[in-house]
């Protein structure tokens, strides 16, 4: 274990959401239509923020606490199963 006094050497450890809950940056929300989803996992691979996980049944699930709504998943989905819906109506 590396021990240095607090706020001396600026160092970072791997951690969930070190920049806080960035989900509130989102202006539009990706919504998965599980009727159309084929579990191809392209959205999981392409998510730039690593906020899409696989559930035990292998369907993807978006973590809206950290999803910034960039829309990459919606773009790469070959079955148009992910639609971007405005956060503010």
């Amino acid at each position, binding site marked *: *274990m590396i021990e*240095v*006094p607090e*706020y*001396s*050497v*600026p*160092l970072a*450890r791997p951690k969930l959401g070190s*920049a806080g809950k960035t989900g509130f940056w989102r202006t539009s929300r990706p919504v998965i239509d599980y009727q159309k989803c084929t579990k191809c996992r392209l959205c999981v691979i392409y998510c730039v923020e690593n906020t899409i996980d696989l559930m035990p049944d292998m369907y993807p699930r978006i973590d809206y606490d950290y999803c910034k709504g960039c829309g990459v998943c919606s773009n790469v989905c070959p079955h148009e199963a992910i639609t971007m819906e405005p956060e503010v109506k």
Partner: protein
Amino acid sequence: MQKARKVLALVGNHAVAYAVKQAKPQVLAVFPITPQTTMLEKLAEYIAEGELKAELVKIESEHSAMATIFGAAVAGARVFTATSSQGLLYMTEMIYWVGGARVPLVAAVATRAIAAPWSILDDHHDFVSKRDAIWIQMMAENVQDAYDLTLMAFRISEYPNLLLPVMMGFDGFILTHTMERLEVLNDEEVDEFLPPRKFNLIDFEDPVSIGQVADSSEYIKYRYSAMKAMENAKSVIEEVSKEYSKLVGRNVPGLVEDFMCDDADYAIVAMGAWSGDVREAVRRLRGEGIKSCLLKVKTFRPFPKELIRKYLSEKKAVLVMDRAYSYGLGGVLASEVKSAMYGLQVPVYNFVAGLGGQDVRPTVIVDMAKKLHEGTLQEEVWLV
């Protein structure tokens, strides 16, 4: 009591290289630049002859030299680099990285004027330009001082939880290329004074990244802690100075050194090699009945403002010798001294000279001090 010591005659660059060899660094990365080059050559020679077991990285620039030892220092190695003038400027970005990351390491700076106009000769502009980089900055008066401060620099830098890099400045050519008598320690004594380095940020059980972003609420906390560390460094330097003095059997002050200040009416404040000329000037002035003294600033950062106040508060007037100038304000050292003496009713005069290797002799300093005594000295005087 004075112990019998091994005595050598070395030029400043070789004296620093000798101290570095005894400190046993594992990684060196040095780019040659006048007037530091002969130090690099000596270190390369020590490695070639097997006297120093270290990796000497033949690097393509000063920027990369500092980056290399930064990485090696993070990974637990004792490291060293040296540069000068334009090289120090080129290294600047990495100097701030190292200071901000609070990584203990040591760099020597053979001070030299900055272009333009081009000059390879001595002044302090390069050295003082790094005053805000979170580095401890110490400056030597002579070759013995350069040797002592290099060893002390490693000890101070690696002092438990201080976490600050140290820059050891010594005047280009005046010290780097001048052969002087010096007393050196035995290798075993240095081993005891500099135990194996403990700082190491590589732990595979606890991986960390260095150089990450800090958001606006965090950034200032690091800088606040750096401010505290620099203040704390003053007592660490004093402690290491006491420890070193005891080891060598000589008095080796850490922050400031006073010469005849007890009963003096006038004080001359100086930093670096020309402190020796001021000593001689003080002797001559005292011969003529003018009670003057030298206050030598050995540590420039953290600036020993408390000691400056202590030594100068009762003086009739103070003359500050400056080999570096902040254009549009005043002499760099004079500004710092004035700031340290804020509120005291002691006039501070500024003598700016020695830029670009200009020769300044004790007679010149004596003349200035006499004018100070007569009350005819202007507040700021340039030797032109």
